[in-house]
């Protein structure tokens, strides 16, 4: 079995046994939706303009929260040093951790999407397919950059405060592309009109996943 599969299996098994990150991210997403709804008075019809933005702000914050937990277990009992001293290639450790986080992120979003539909009066209908594609591409980008930033900030003395400051500026192209694409998908516009956002997301994913798997080696040295 490849080291990628072993680490991925370990990550998923750990998360499944406690469901800690999943629970925290879900409850947090629900709370943020509630806060947005109260702060912006969603009863007004104008809110539809802001819905893609609200959706992605919520997803971004809950992703940051999940990333804060992503190296939590590694910090306990020097588990991370043991993982690094194993013969597993550092690039595959990174890819496995990023993939596990991607699955977590998608799970949280797919569970909370119906709540958005309910609370923000979203009309999804036939937009569901394109919307899931946007979710997948944006989440790959978030996981690729997120795991790298989490890996370096959480081994710093003040990592918890460092992580969002490093993460969000690096994710701005994703935020722009994802909100624009989501808006267009919800408005049922033909995909040919907005596929440039999908291209941008796709290229971002490829570039930063490659960069991450090369660079991760350098941030995991002691």
């Amino acid at each position: 079995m490849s080291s990628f599969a072993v680490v991925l299996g370990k990550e998923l098994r750990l998360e499944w046994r406690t469901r800690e990150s999943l629970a925290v991210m879900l409850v947090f997403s629900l709370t943020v939706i509630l806060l947005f709804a109260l702060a912006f008075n969603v009863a007004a019809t104008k809110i539809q303009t802001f819905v893609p933005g609200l959706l992605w702000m919520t997803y971004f914050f809950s992703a940051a929260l999940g990333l804060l937990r992503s190296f939590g277990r590694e910090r306990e009992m020097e588990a991370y040093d043991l993982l690094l001293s194993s013969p597993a290639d550092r690039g595959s450790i990174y890819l496995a951790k990023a993939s596990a986080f991607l699955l977590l992120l998608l799970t949280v979003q797919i569970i909370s999407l119906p709540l958005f539909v309910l609370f923000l009066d979203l009309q999804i209908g036939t937009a569901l397919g394109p919307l899931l594609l946007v979710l997948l591409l944006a989440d790959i980008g978030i996981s690729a950059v997120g795991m790298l930033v989490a890996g370096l900030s959480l081994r710093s003395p003040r990592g918890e405060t460092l992580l969002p400051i490093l993460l969000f500026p690096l994710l701005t192209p994703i935020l722009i592309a994802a909100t624009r694409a989501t808006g267009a998908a919800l408005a049922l516009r033909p995909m040919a009109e907005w596929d440039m956002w999908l291209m941008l997301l796709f290229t971002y994913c490829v570039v930063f996943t490659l960069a991450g798997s090369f660079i991760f080696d350098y941030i995991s040295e002691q």
Partner: protein
Amino acid sequence: MRPFHTIRGNQILLLVTLAIAALNLYLIYFVSPMVQDQEMAQKIFYYHVPLAWNAFFSYLLAAVAGGLYLAKGDTRWDRWSLAGAEIGTMFALLILITGPIWATPIWGKAWSWEPRLTSTLILFLVFMGYFMVREFGGPYEQSSRYAAVIGILGVLLIPFVVLAVTWWAPEVQNHPQMEMTGQPGSILRIFLFSLFSFSLIMIYLIRYRRHIGELVLNKMRAGEEA
């Protein structure tokens, strides 16, 4: 290490840089022609565009030297990377200041999310993270490597930010893209001279900053040994 300004080469660089900068100011304010409609506001173009070049090249240096530092582990590269990042951020800040100064009389609004200014702001924030990692990232060997990673990611991000921000709000006005070949020769020549002058300022500042970086590192190491 000898003090920076006792080295002959640096003395000459400083004097030449100052003389050229003074001549540049004279050319911009007294020789270059007034542009219709914009009057004095147009003069900022001779600063703003060279500043953007400088910021870009300094950040590129931060990323490339950061990559070499990661690959070779030689702290000299780390000092170049830090110098590039700091001087680049200073120039980025000046872009963010001169842009709105120009936009206030011309567009009647200081900040209107002009794509290139917005991109500069995002890059500026990425490099704020770079300095925070240096400050709070743990011991020097660790934080300098982490900072190099952020510098590389930041420069990889540039094309994505520029594309995303440009497509993000097509209704937002781009500031005029000067067609350099279409400019009258008097403007073009003074602009190129200004580019040269600002490049000298950048080279001088980066060299000086790197020198200080070496001093700080030497002092830190001496402190560790003592």
